């Protein structure tokens, strides 16, 4: 996750231990995101074409599709990260927990705090220790209480299934651990600020199979607390970790449904041809 910018409103921050995200009565009762007629342009080039989709809370939703189909663009617009690219234009609406993510008075930094992101390449801050990496978001948000920081440090590392491996090396540089551990460190950093959603952009593409398995196991565990949206090129991974799958092709949503249905009996011919390896 990108650390919240200093412009994040301090009024939202308290030193009280944050409660875990509220649990809806059933995971799919209220969509975390309601995307309505979303279109996105980079300059003249249209990257997303009129996509409407509801992403349920506390589920893992996989976004699949060939390179250039708009997967990452779609993911990034869920926490307004795409706005960091110049000449971006957006049409349509994204409701996050019923509220317009793009309303004029909405703070992008706050959106990014509530909707965290894990990137393809693990990116711990190189000058920071493991501990500092995990806590950087909290510190930027003004949390100073050592007790709270320690508590959140251990909790985040435990949730990222990394605590046992690094608890004696917390002062070592974040870049001193393996690639798989670094990616889990980035997940710990993302969840330390207690977001409600985790967006993951190919989080395992640079990892070996064992590290990938650990991250996938982590995704399955985290889904009980967080809404997770994951972009992946690995269709076996999408099949393993996700509850819902959306297939994008040249900026359009071709099919969206239960992962088991998509990978056993897709309704659309394009989906079938893509997931069975007939084009892409």
């Amino acid at each position, binding site marked *: 996750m990108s650390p919240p910018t200093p412009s994040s409103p301090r009024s939202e921050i308290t030193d009280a231990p944050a409660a875990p995200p509220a649990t809806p009565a059933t995971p799919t009762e209220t969509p975390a995101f309601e995307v309505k007629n979303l279109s996105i342009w980079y300059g003249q080039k249209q990257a997303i074409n009129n996509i409407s989709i509801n992403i349920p809370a506390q589920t893992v939703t996989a976004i699949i599709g060939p390179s250039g189909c708009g997967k990452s663009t779609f993911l990034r617009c869920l926490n307004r990260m795409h706005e960091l690219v110049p000449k971006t234009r957006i049409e349509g609406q994204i409701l996050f927990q019923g509220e317009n993510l793009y309303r004029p008075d909405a703070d992008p930094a706050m959106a990014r705090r509530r909707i965290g992101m894990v990137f393809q390449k693990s990116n711990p801050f190189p000058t920071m220790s493991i501990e500092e990496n995990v806590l950087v978001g909290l510190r930027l948000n003004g949390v100073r209480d050592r007790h709270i920081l320690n508590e959140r440090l251990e909790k985040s590392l435990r949730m990222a299934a990394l605590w046992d491996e690094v608890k004696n090396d917390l002062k070592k540089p974040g870049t001193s651990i393996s690639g798989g551990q670094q990616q889990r460190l980035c997940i710990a950093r993302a969840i330390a600020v207690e977001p409600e959603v985790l967006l993951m952009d190919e989080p395992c593409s640079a990892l070996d199979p064992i590290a990938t398995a650990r991250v996938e196991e982590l995704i399955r565990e985290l889904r009980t607390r967080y809404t997770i949206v994951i972009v992946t090129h690995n269709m076996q991974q999408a099949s393993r970790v996700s509850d819902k799958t959306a297939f994008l092709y040249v900026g359009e949503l071709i099919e969206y449904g239960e992962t088991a249905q998509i*990978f056993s009996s897709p309704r659309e011919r394009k989906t079938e041809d893509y997931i*069975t390896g007939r084009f892409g």
Partner: protein
Amino acid sequence: MPGHILRDFDRALDSLRADALMMASLTDRNLQNSMTCLLDRDAAICAVAISDEAEIDALEKKIDRDGVEILRRFHPVASDLRQVVSTMKIGGNLERIADQAVKIARRARKLPLEPELDEATVLGPMFIEAMALFRDSIRAYADADTDLARTLRRRDREIDRMNHDIADNLTARMAEQPDRIPDYLELLFIARHLERVGDHAKNIGEDAVYTAVAEDIRHPNNLLEVA
């Protein structure tokens, strides 16, 4: 449907399907031979029907081995996955049909040549119907003909009814000719084997539907869903 980008995948799927159709062809010959064995009382054909089982068993093992290899190597999904899983199941059903054919040939061989039993009259129509059902099940699989496949359940019930009628008929004959009870029992068992051929053919039809349209048409009256 266009081919896979990975052409080895196409070749592996084509080969698996070809093996299943070859196995079906051998099973067809085996059933035909067992019918000739029974109805024409040809001992040489009986021996052929019995010895053909080995090749069919070997093909079943090959289909399973190649199917697992495709799962391991290509991680098929959607229609490819259904094709692999169904073809492996069809291989199992074909092997069991061939088993029934061999059992028929073994029993037929035991029947005395003289005095001749009236088995052609009793079992002939059931044999013809079971053969037709089997051939249509293979046609449904080969041509992805779901309409044809969906007729097989009803036709299997007809074979079940024929089996009951034959059992009644043979039981009556046993009462009339107690000295020939062992022979009539062989015929009773042969009818039972043919009834099982119908069951397996119906199963193949169900797998043909699943392969083509991902619909599970088994046990239509059982509404229980197990999570």
